[in-house]
């Protein structure tokens, strides 16, 4: 099994990455990519059009070129004004056509928790602790005093019956494909940022707050969790494994994790 981790880790999806956006793998990646493309097309158009005017003027009105200096602006004021108006209209279209509705979708349309994978992630300097609720589907209570970096990194309170079957991993987020995922993000120490570039997911992880996010992976693959907020000296190395698996592989892996759980009141050191 451990070999599988290793190979799984090394088998990175090279075809997903290039000079441009990483290939998306979630249901809302296409929407974000569309806005990105649209804005960039606008940018290129603007740059080229203004650039043409700019260079034209520079050549036409260089000082050697004997022409009478004209006091007013461009002969047709409508040209610059329409260029600005174009931007305004485009901005409005982006805002009301894409960005505001999409952000609503992102923040308000949370999937049904019953039908999704629900995970808690507790970030710390410099690791992502992933907390699965286990069989009962309920997260156990955790308390800061109980934190033991080695055996109980998120401070689970084992007096809580819900906590007994909870599974925690260090930096290993595995989820089944084509099923919505809800992640509750929180941090033990400083602000981190949970980033999954292929999923177009990025969310600051703020201590003292639990922030839910959701997404739905559309294909399987091996990727990484990245930290996108300076969180200390080893920030650059704060990465985790992010695997989207089909349902059977995920269940098999989960079974192995559950086998490691302590049996009735067995002490763990």
């Amino acid at each position, binding site marked *: 099994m451990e070999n599988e981790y290793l190979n799984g880790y090394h088998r990175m999806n090279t075809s997903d990455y290039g000079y441009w956006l990483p290939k998306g793998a979630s249901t809302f990646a296409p929407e974000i990519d569309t806005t990105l493309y649209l804005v960039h097309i606008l940018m290129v158009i603007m740059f080229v059009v203004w650039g043409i005017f700019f260079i034209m003027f520079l050549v036409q009105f260089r000082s050697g070129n004997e022409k009478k200096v004209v006091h007013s602006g461009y002969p047709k004021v409508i040209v610059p004004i329409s260029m600005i108006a174009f931007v305004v209209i485009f901005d409005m279209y982006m805002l009301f056509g894409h960005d505001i509705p999409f952000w609503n979708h992102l923040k308000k349309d949370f999937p049904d928790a019953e039908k999704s994978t629900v995970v808690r992630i507790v970030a710390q300097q410099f690791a992502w602790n992933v907390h699965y609720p286990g069989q009962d589907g309920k997260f156990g209570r955790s308390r800061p005093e109980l934190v033991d970096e080695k055996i109980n990194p998120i401070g689970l309170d084992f007096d809580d019956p819900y906590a007994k079957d909870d599974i925690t991993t260090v930096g290993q987020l595995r989820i089944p494909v084509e099923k919505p995922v809800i992640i509750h993000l929180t941090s033990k120490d400083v602000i981190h940022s949970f980033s999954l570039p292929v999923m177009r997911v990025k969310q600051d992880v703020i*201590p003292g707050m639990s922030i839910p996010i959701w997404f739905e992976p559309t294909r399987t693959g091996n990727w990484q969790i990245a930290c996108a907020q300076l969180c200390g000296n080893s920030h650059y190395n704060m990465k985790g494994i992010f695997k989207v698996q089909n349902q059977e592989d995920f269940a098999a892996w989960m079974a192995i994790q559950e086998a490691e759980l302590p049996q009735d009141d067995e002490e763990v050191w």
Partner: protein
Amino acid sequence: MTNAEYSRQSFWRQYIFSVDHKVIGLQYGLTALSFLLLGFMLMVLMRWQLAFPGEVIPWLTFVVIFILLGLAIVFLAGKKRPYLALNSLIFFGIAALIWYFTTGEERLPGGIMLPEFYNQLGTMHGTIMVFLGVVPLAVGAFGNYILPLQIGAPDMAFPRMNMVSYWVYFIGGVLMIISFFLPGGAAQSGWTSYSPLADINTGQTMWLVAMLFVIISSLLGAINFIVTTVQLRVEGMTWFRLPFFVWTQLITAFLLLLAFPSLQIGAIMQLLDRVAGSSFFIPAGIIQGGKVLEYSGGGNPLLWQHLFWFLAHPEVYVLILPAIGIITEVVTNNTRKPLWGYPAMVYSLFFIGFMSFLVYAHHMFITGMGTAVTTWFQTTTLIISIPSIIFLAVIVFTLWGGSIRFTTPMLFALAWVPMFGIGGLTGLPLGLAPPDIHLHDTYYVIGHFHYIVAPGSIIAFFAGIYYWFPKICGKKLNDNLGKVHFWGTIIGMNLTFAPMLVQGMAGVSRRLYDGGLGYDHAQPVLFLNEWMTWGAWIIGIFQIFFILNIVLTLRKKSRSEENPWDATTLEWATTSPPIAHGNFITEPFVYHGPYEYNVSVNGQNVPYLPQHKKMDIED
């Protein structure tokens, strides 16, 4: 005090604790340029690490280059200009600082950079560039020197306060440098200093103390600028006869005055968190290294971000507005025609100044903001892009129908237009919340921001320095050296900053010590790190031409004309350099708008009509 009395003052009163705005402006300028050089040097060290992670930094090369530069200045200055030779101290100082970095296990053991030192460099690069380099240069130096001259004032409204604000800034800068020598090193939580990281990291205390000095200096300066502009305009200098540069300084001063207090409070609160054990920004139950930290809790980490960005977004406009002012002056002067759409520019400026307070939270889209707040801030952000486009439109369409001279300052000003254009355009995807999910905290942000401040502000400052150097020193900088400097700088800057946008698109995070080596998605674009590093070297090497140009020009005996650019604004109505005390021999009176080039008077074409010359312009 008469001018003669003034010149009889002691050396200290005349040059060190001077109350003359011109001397203070020069002090600001030299200090800020030194800080820019230092900030650049820190960046080159970082870039080497990013391009060649874990390899030995060629620190000896840097030290030798800086010592040679210093020696060159000493040599070129000669015996006649001992004060000029003193400037070499800056170069020796930077060489010594780099040498110091290689001592001690906690910075560069064996010339190999450690991550915590990388973070220190990154933090200090940002802080020094923004707070100690660009703003003091834009406001302290250009504003101080040029603004009173352009409105015909004898000095700033509060000359002694002016001196105090320089020295407070200077102390802040010195404290900032001293922090490198303290145990634990300089601040390493990023220039944004997000709590709680900044609350628990080493080195932050000195940063906060130094920042408080810088803030106080800026506040005093801002009051002075506003009062000067409003109260000391000479007769006839109505609001719409103000050169556009003065307008930008005025709005900038308002931004500084009203935005900085929030960081002042933030800095005091963070300082108390660090030294008095309060927990303004620290929630309960923080666990670091497996142990619960002893804080009462109850704080809010996001509060710091609100306080910080409430300053830091207007601060971005503080970086760019004076630059736009300089560009406007240079472009109109070299296009030889009035600024087309001057009122539009002024109204845009007011609008941008007002709006800049309402957009700040677009830096915080991914902190988990709700829909209403996000909608508000992305809408305001798109609205604030309109005045920026108006600025560009006015500058571009002012070129139409002119007679463009391609002088060195004009080259810089013209290059500024597309460069700032890229910077502004790349701001659009960042201002919209959904694309920002992908681009937030990536190199795209770095690329965007640096296109605004490096080819944006700094190139404008170069334009300003080339343009006003004859005013300040009475001598014109060499045009050929200037052009070499120009092309090298432009090419280097684009080579450095354009690849950042590509890396950012691929999702490479900023502030990574290994430049993304550890991340799969960064692999295809890793090679760009080397390009950027060579780009930074090109920028650096071509600045040598700039430094040499200044030194060689100051050595020259021949003086340039009083008004070498045939400019119309009031600063050219006096001698070059202006008389030491009071600026103007006789108080000027203003009859015209600021940019009356090629106007017709009595049927004759007048190439330029200075503001203080009385003539009747025909339409």
